[in-house]
């Protein structure tokens, strides 16, 4: 009951207090000289948002950076120890390697597939139906998708009925079953494949929306000039889609670096499949707060340039409008 009251308080009272802040504050601002009003008003209105962002984003960020130079109990400075650990210990190096594999293959394949599918579907009659089919995995949570694929990758002893779809197919082709998630040549690829399966639809939808915005006159002019469809895609469609592809690509890179759930559910990092985010979770679960913070900072530093690229793109698009 008490929790219920607190929840109501949070949902109703907080917005009311904010509203009161604005109304009362506006009364005060109104009484100031005109010039001062113009100068002070934007800051005054933005202050609650800045306050929330500071408390919930900036402070934790700074605290994480500080913690990454501290010991676990946060009692002494340990210099770069946590970072040295991260960049020298075999397990974390494996997770770095795997994150790199994710970054390269997950990003390139999902964006390329999204692009190709968007272009191809643009030319068929059952476009929306096909799109729905490809988009279907997107709203499924990563955990649920991983559980679905756990069944798909299932392995039974050779010579018995294969309950996993993939091994059943291999069996039909007269092949021995493969322990997809155990075998080190297939496990990382299998995990990345699940990631691609669940996100390609998203890439397709964004790219497709941008594709629809390309004026048909441009394409028709090219056709009149004798360009074939490959040349049109190569010389007109792709360059015009480039800003969108960049945004989708950087978003996918961020996704790849943040990958956690698929790995956690399917292998929990066993057989050398750990990635940076599962490594961060392990360090937290093992109460190595300093190391976890260091992993977090490394991840943050890797992602910031991509965020900058993304935001610049958005700004350019805004300006073009």
């Amino acid at each position, binding site marked *: 009951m*008490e*929790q219920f*009251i*607190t929840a109501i*308080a949070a949902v109703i*009272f907080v917005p*009311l*207090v904010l*509203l*009161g802040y604005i*109304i*009362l504050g506006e*009364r005060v601002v109104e009484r100031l000289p005109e010039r001062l009003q113009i100068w002070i008003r934007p800051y005054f209105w933005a202050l609650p948002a800045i306050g929330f962002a500071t408390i919930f984003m900036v402070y934790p960020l700074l605290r994480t950076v500080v913690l990454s130079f501290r*010991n*676990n109990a946060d009692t002494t400075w340990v210099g770069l120890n946590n970072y040295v*650990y991260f960049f020298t*210990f*075999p*397990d974390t190096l494996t997770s770095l390697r795997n994150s790199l594999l994710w970054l390269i293959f997950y990003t390139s394949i999902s964006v390329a597939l999204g692009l190709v599918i968007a272009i191809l579907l643009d030319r068929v009659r059952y476009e929306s139906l096909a799109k729905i089919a490809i988009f279907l995995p997107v709203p499924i949570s990563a955990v649920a998708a991983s559980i679905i694929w756990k069944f798909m990758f*299932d*392995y*039974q*002893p*050779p010579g*018995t009925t294969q309950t996993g779809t993939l091994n059943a197919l291999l069996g039909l082709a007269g092949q021995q079953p493969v*322990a997809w*998630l*155990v*075998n080190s040549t297939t496990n990382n690829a299998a995990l990345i494949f699940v990631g691609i399966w669940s996100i390609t639809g998203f890439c397709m939808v964004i790219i497709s929306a941008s594709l629809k915005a390309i004026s048909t006159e441009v394409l028709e002019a090219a056709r009149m000039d004798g360009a074939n469809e490959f040349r049109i895609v190569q010389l007109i469609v792709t360059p015009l889609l480039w800003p969108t592809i960049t945004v989708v690509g950087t978003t996918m890179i961020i996704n790849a670096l943040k990958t956690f759930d698929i790995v*956690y*559910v399917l292998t*929990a*990092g*066993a*057989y050398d499949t750990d990635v940076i985010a599962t490594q961060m979770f*392990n360090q*937290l*679960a*093992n*109460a*190595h707060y300093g190391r976890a913070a260091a992993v977090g900072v490394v991840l943050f530093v890797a992602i910031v340039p991509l965020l900058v690229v993304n935001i610049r793109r958005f700004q350019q698009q805004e300006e073009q409008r």
Partner: protein
Amino acid sequence: MTEVLAGLSSRAIASGLGVLLLVACSTGGSTQQSASSTDVTQWVAWGGQELTAYRDVLKPFESKTGIKVHVTTNRESTTAIANGIEAGTELPDIAPGPTDPVQLKSWVGKGALKPLESFLDMKAYTDNTYPALTTPPGGASDDPYIGIIGGKHYLEMIKTQVKGLFWYNKKVFTGQAPKTFDDLLAINPSQYGAQKLFCAGFESGGDSGWPASDQLHNIIMRQSGDQVYTDWINGKKKWTSPEIKLGYQTFLKEVSAANVYGGPNTALSTNFGKAGDPLFKSPAGCLFLEQATFIANFFTQNTPGLKAGTDFDFFGHPSVNSQYDGNVNGFYDNVAMYNSTPAAKQLMQYLATKDAQQIWANDGGTLGAIKTLNYNDPIYKRAAEVAGSAKNLLVTAGDFMPSDMRKAYWQSLLNVTRTPSSLDSQLAHLDQVQTAAYSTS
């Protein structure tokens, strides 16, 4: 809306806001208070049948005392409590204690854990409970593996299980239980119409590998003795030492392609709960499955119609080195008190009674911590004898290693099962983790 608000005087709005803030603060404040005197909050790691059995245990207590026990299943309770202690937020009244000795000492030091001595009749408790769960060997004042720090007990033992038992289908394996581990390995499964000697299943989500570690624990404690075993838990024995390496090599015989059903890949891909299914197939996939007492529940669940004692049975772990025959691997479930409320104390007192634990024994699926319970189930009756006859009831080593050591250890067993030739490099890696894990935790 804005016009209406603008119509009100500033003073009216200000006083209104003041009242709202006061209400918000006061409701926020009241949630900080702990549960009332007739409520106990408890976190448990149990779900399913185990949780149902626990609710049965609670029923007489709740109806007699009028205390309401709010039970929440939380399998990450140690992490949550550790964070709660660090942050100073509210803890459950009762929850399992930590297994990591360093964490236990730290929590005791911070006063988060309350000693049993503050509310329990300790003489009755130690007299009733299996001695290995309450009394440190040689009268030491510290034994973090059973929750004793500075001569005080912090973990109340309520359930126990025996590990390292070899289960078999009575209709398939009709021979005598082997005396030694070599005798066991010498059994020819085809003589009994089974494909392989052993079944195994090491998959267990994020904890994959623990079933393999139990097999290794049971080898090492019987092969190199309890001293080596305890030193190994404490990080005082290198993984590359001859004793531990020999243990791994012996374990690898159990999971070799020649001995394990379906080969190593099957052992690695099979969930521990389903590992025993091939015992009951026709023809049998394997003769034996090594697992703890609790596995009987999985047998009857997965293959309906099976009866414990009639269709399947177990024999204790065969001797590896006769010098260490009295060492038995067990584990326990405990409750620890984090808030010293009268209601929580009453519940803790109740759980240590024979009346409470007998309900568990009647529901089946576990041994109580009290020696003199009656078991209807023939399997548990015998398991209680095994536990009672143990010279040393040794804890599960992996559970008491620092958590990063444990994780690396479990993963190493998966890796050597898959690639036995990687044993030396795996052990060298574990040494590296050991140095880091024991120095910083």
